[in-house]
């Protein structure tokens, strides 16, 4: 017997692989971000800052490397924020009626879709890392093979929890809103502060105080911190600034994301349970 969430997962992944356009664009999207925005911004930052010299004994990273974890974070944010769209279609024109009338527990619907979203997010993460390194991103410098593996596991955990959390947000919106236009509007508006009031693209130290406060509680900041810690180390300089992370901070960020995911899961589940689809 296959559990309901596996069935939902299987169906979602099947669609992902079957329709090459979705597969292709989801892979191309992060590559374009890196190649266009990343290289463009990196060139400008390098010109303004002149590279800067790192204090002795500290690894110094260029902007492209600094931005790459942020790029992963942003890609996952957007992919999952729009991830509820297929559910909106299922709800309005598809098989959600069949699912809702079935004895399958509602939470299986959410866990199944989350699981497939996490899978897709991890694929995108790998693509960005690989493509980034081709472009000159210097991740994992000075780490042994074992260190790289531990770092990758850390990144996987951060990406998985964050993508599931954001997907639940988008599921919540998809269940509460009936029109595709409304869904698009809400998710786009949501994405703006999350994306920009964070340290994904630039250090939050340079933001206005209010935005700094927002960045501090912004899950995207915590994801970026986690990814930077695992890919760039706990002590480095970039953009002329010194970055120091300690493992407790990173653990707190992870727990923060975990709590965020549990809360959004709860809201998504409630939205599904309350919705009447006829």
């Amino acid at each position, binding site marked *: *017997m*296959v*559990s*309901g969430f*596996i*069935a*939902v997962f*299987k*169906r979602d992944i*099947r*669609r992902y692989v*079957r*329709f090459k356009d979705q597969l292709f664009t989801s892979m191309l999207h992060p590559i374009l971000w890196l190649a266009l925005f990343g290289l463009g911004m990196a060139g400008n930052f390098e010109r303004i800052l002149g590279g800067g010299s790192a204090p002795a004994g500290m690894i110094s990273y260029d902007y492209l490397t600094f931005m790459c974890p942020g790029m992963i974070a942003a890609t996952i944010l957007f992919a999952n924020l729009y991830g509820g769209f297929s559910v909106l279609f*299922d709800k309005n024109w*598809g*098989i959600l*009626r*069949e*699912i*809702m*009338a*079935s*004895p*399958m527990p509602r939470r*299986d619907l959410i866990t199944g879709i989350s699981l497939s979203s996490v899978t897709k997010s991890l694929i995108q993460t790998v693509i960005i890392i690989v493509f980034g390194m081709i472009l000159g991103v210097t991740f994992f410098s000075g780490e042994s093979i074992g260190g790289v593996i531990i770092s990758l596991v850390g990144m996987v955990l951060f990406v998985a929890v964050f993508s599931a959390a954001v997907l639940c947000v988008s599921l919540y919106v998809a269940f509460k809103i009936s029109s595709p236009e409304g869904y698009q509007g809400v998710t786009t508006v949501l994405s703006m502060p999350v994306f920009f009031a964070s340290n994904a693209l630039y250090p939050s130290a340079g933001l206005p105080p209010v935005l700094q406060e927002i960045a501090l509680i912004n899950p995207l900041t915590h994801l970026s911190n986690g990814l930077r810690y695992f890919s760039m180390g706990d002590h480095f300089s970039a953009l002329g600034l010194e970055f120091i992370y300690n493992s407790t901070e990173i653990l707190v960020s992870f727990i923060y994301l975990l709590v965020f995911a549990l809360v959004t899961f709860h809201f998504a589940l409630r939205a599904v349970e309350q919705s*009447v*689809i*006829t």
Partner: protein
Amino acid sequence: MSNSVILDVSNFSYAYGDVQAVKDVSFRVKRGEFFSFLGPNGAGKTTVINTLITLLPMQEGTVTVAGYDLRADHVKVRESIGIVFQQITLDKDMTVRETLDFHGDIYGMGLEDKMQRISELLTLVELEEKADALVSTLSGGMKRRLEIARGLMTRPQILFLDEPTIGLDPQTRQKTWEYLRMVNQEGTTIFMTTHYMDEADILSDSIALIDHGEIIQRGTPDELKSGLGKDIIYLETTDNSAVSTRIQEIPGITGIQPCYGKLLIFSGNDGAQVLPDIIRAADEQGITVTSVSLKKPTMDDVFMHYTGTEIRD
């Protein structure tokens, strides 16, 4: 609950805000029966079926489906029933086989059982050759058949169908009826809503006529038709309203109502024998009969008689 009753609805009411869609409806469906809910658009059929299949929350009344209380045991109810929804509810991007496989999975079927059932059902609805085709490539009739197969995946005790032949061409409708009759003969109880009189007449063991949220008549198709009398006479005269009072007095006339500029006369006796009396009655008043026809009552007449002639939407 007696063992032969599979669906027991008593005093069921449903309201959307201030609008009372279903009013105090009670009926029973026997195990193995082909039961039809017949009524015009907006009569409340879909509200009833959507509540029975657990898509709408239970409001007033008591409903027992396959021995389970709908309010308390809705998961058990879900496990016991099969559903064919009114609108096509398929993922067009899945194949026929995947559609059935997915359904088996979300109903918790075992792998072997699922595989066996899929091949049985593909044979039943003659879709074996389309097993690996995407749903988007199927015709409307094939999609309906796939939905019927899906509704039967878990060997439900009762299959609910909401307007199963809506939008299908006559040949496809016939074919769909054949499948439904076959499914019913194999022992599955069927609860169907429809606004097609012929469909209800041909398929059903028992019909409940619903209008404005209330059951207005119940019986077998024959009972409903013979309830209107032996024959029906359509009469057109130069003054329908004047002649109708006289006709009502003729022995054997059980009812009379205006219908699209004609008079619809229900006769309890042989219509051919009553006809001369009707024409004489018109003559005596100096009213000219411009057209007359005689026929056996059909479900259309039953429908029109009980629900009236106004157009619904």
